[in-house]
């Protein structure tokens, strides 16, 4: 077993509960993550799957410390980063990168692609040889060099997501959080982006947390899978084991609900037993 990059123990996150906003005083907290334990082995791609409200995105944001946990620890290379201050986190930021779901809203419309990719390099003292580094980043994601001078609106959805990947990987991070990065894309583009990420993760030895609602995509890309529901881990195991022999009823329900592109006359038949 590879040494873990992340070692998470008893992780809890509570966020303000906007559905119970009081007229005066502080918004009460709702516990989104209710005590999670797991490891992310170095150089592995881990799928985090769940339905809306399961806490999968919150978990991702806690890992890269965009939010501070309310309890538990997040070990990153053996050091607990769960309560580090913003200043203490700064030197770690270059190793904790993100690719977002919607590249349209995560790319600055007023900046050229060159400047979007160059920004993290400049901030991290890699401002020398910028042209060379950006050119390398573009090449890595299969975009022509001429794109450096363009703006996000001149790009297709798939090209924008390539820029998002180029930006995240420009600093050669140790960890990449990919949160629903293909859910807005057409299947043909989705396949391109996923094969690109698959290739780059292997080449660069990245540790990736791949958040998705789509188990089919996860099976292809990930070595291990964490299934989440209502802020808890339902099941976590090696990918093949999870798909070939799901232990939990919820995992089986999720698998059974995926409409595979093949004819199955029984799929729409009502279930034999009525769920309580």
């Amino acid at each position, binding site marked *: 077993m590879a040494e873990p990059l992340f070692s998470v123990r008893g992780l809890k996150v509570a966020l303000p509960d906007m559905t119970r906003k009081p007229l005066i005083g502080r918004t009460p907290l709702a516990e989104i993550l209710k005590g999670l334990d797991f490891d992310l082995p170095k150089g592995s791609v881990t799928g985090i799957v769940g*339905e*809306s409200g399961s806490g999968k995105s919150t978990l991702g944001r806690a890992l890269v410390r965009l939010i501070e946990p309310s309890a538990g620890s997040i070990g990153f290379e053996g050091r607990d980063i769960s309560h580090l201050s913003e200043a203490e986190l700064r030197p770690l930021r270059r190793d904790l990168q993100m690719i977002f779901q919607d590249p349209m809203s995560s790319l600055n419309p007023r900046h050229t692609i060159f400047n979007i990719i160059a920004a993290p390099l400049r901030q991290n003292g890699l401002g020398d040889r910028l042209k060379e580094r950006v050119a390398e980043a573009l090449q890595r994601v299969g975009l022509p060099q001429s794109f450096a001078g363009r703006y996000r609106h001149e790009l297709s*959805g798939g090209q924008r997501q390539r820029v998002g990947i180029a930006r995240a990987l420009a600093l050669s991070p140790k960890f990449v959080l990919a949160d629903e990065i293909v859910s807005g894309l*057409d*299947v*043909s583009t*989705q*396949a*391109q982006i*996923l*094969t690109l990420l698959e290739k780059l993760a292997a080449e660069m030895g990245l540790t990736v947390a791949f958040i998705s*609602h*789509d*188990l*089919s*995509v*996860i*099976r*292809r890309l990930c070595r291990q899978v964490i299934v989440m529901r209502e802020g808890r881990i339902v099941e976590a195991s090696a990918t093949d084991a999870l*798909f070939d022999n799901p232990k939990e009823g919820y995992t089986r*329900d*999720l*698998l*059974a*609900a*995926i*409409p*595979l*592109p*093949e*004819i*199955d006359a029984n*799929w*729409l038949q*009502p279930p034999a037993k009525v769920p309580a």
Partner: protein
Amino acid sequence: MEPCLEIRCLSAVLPNERRVLRSVSLAVQPGEVRALVGESGAGKTMIGKAVLGVLPKSVRIVEGEMLIEGEDLGRLDAKARRTLIGARTALIPQDPLTALNPSRRIGPQMTDRLVRILGWSGEKADKRIRQLLDEVQIREPERVLKCYPHELSGGMRQRVLIAAAFAAEPRLIVADEPTTALDVTVQKQILRLIAQLQRDHGTAILFVTHDLGVVAKISQKVSVLYAGKVVEEAQTADLFASPQHPYTRALIAATPRYTDPYASLKPVDETVLAGLADEIAAADRAWRPSHG
């Protein structure tokens, strides 16, 4: 048998004369589910909107006919056309939240449509709505009818809209990506409900989707669209057993399948896309002279 919906050679253009629908022909028989599948920009939603008479102003139909139960929409004046569409068709939209008025309770919204468009009495409409809420398995109709849309979950809102769509006994329903915004387990329940009601009421459905998985489960026939052109049309079972067009084969191979991770998720080959571009260009060359 007379088709419930027949589209003949429908072409539509944008103000710059670029075609967005390219001589589309298809027929939906009574009680049949016909899927329209394609990627973004393929024109599948546009066809649904054309049928319902709600195309954006910028899109102009320049050729072709649409017939609902044999009646040619093009031969009717605007008022008669609206009446016919209102009485015989309904829509299940993608996003139930934007389709519902946020400031009115569910009950009046649902009955209003029946009263206004079909001229039913309030009592008859109310009875009908309750019956449909039962059919879509809403267990507490009283509570739901008093709710505002934001008080319901996405799945519940979609159930309400399915009930509303079937309430007026339309002959044809246009379902425009009705499960795209839902979680998979909820999607399965909603697809099951649509199939159940569709069978029980004998309604024809034009089912717009980008998901070949959904196509395989819900439809009997399918039209595959690319750039506003039907590139392949088949019985759904035949389409998956032996797809004829290279683009259809590429789409099926690109669709992820957890049962076969390495045979799926294949990027669409450049030669397939180049072939499509040629096909579209050839179709446009053949079309333009008659309108030059």
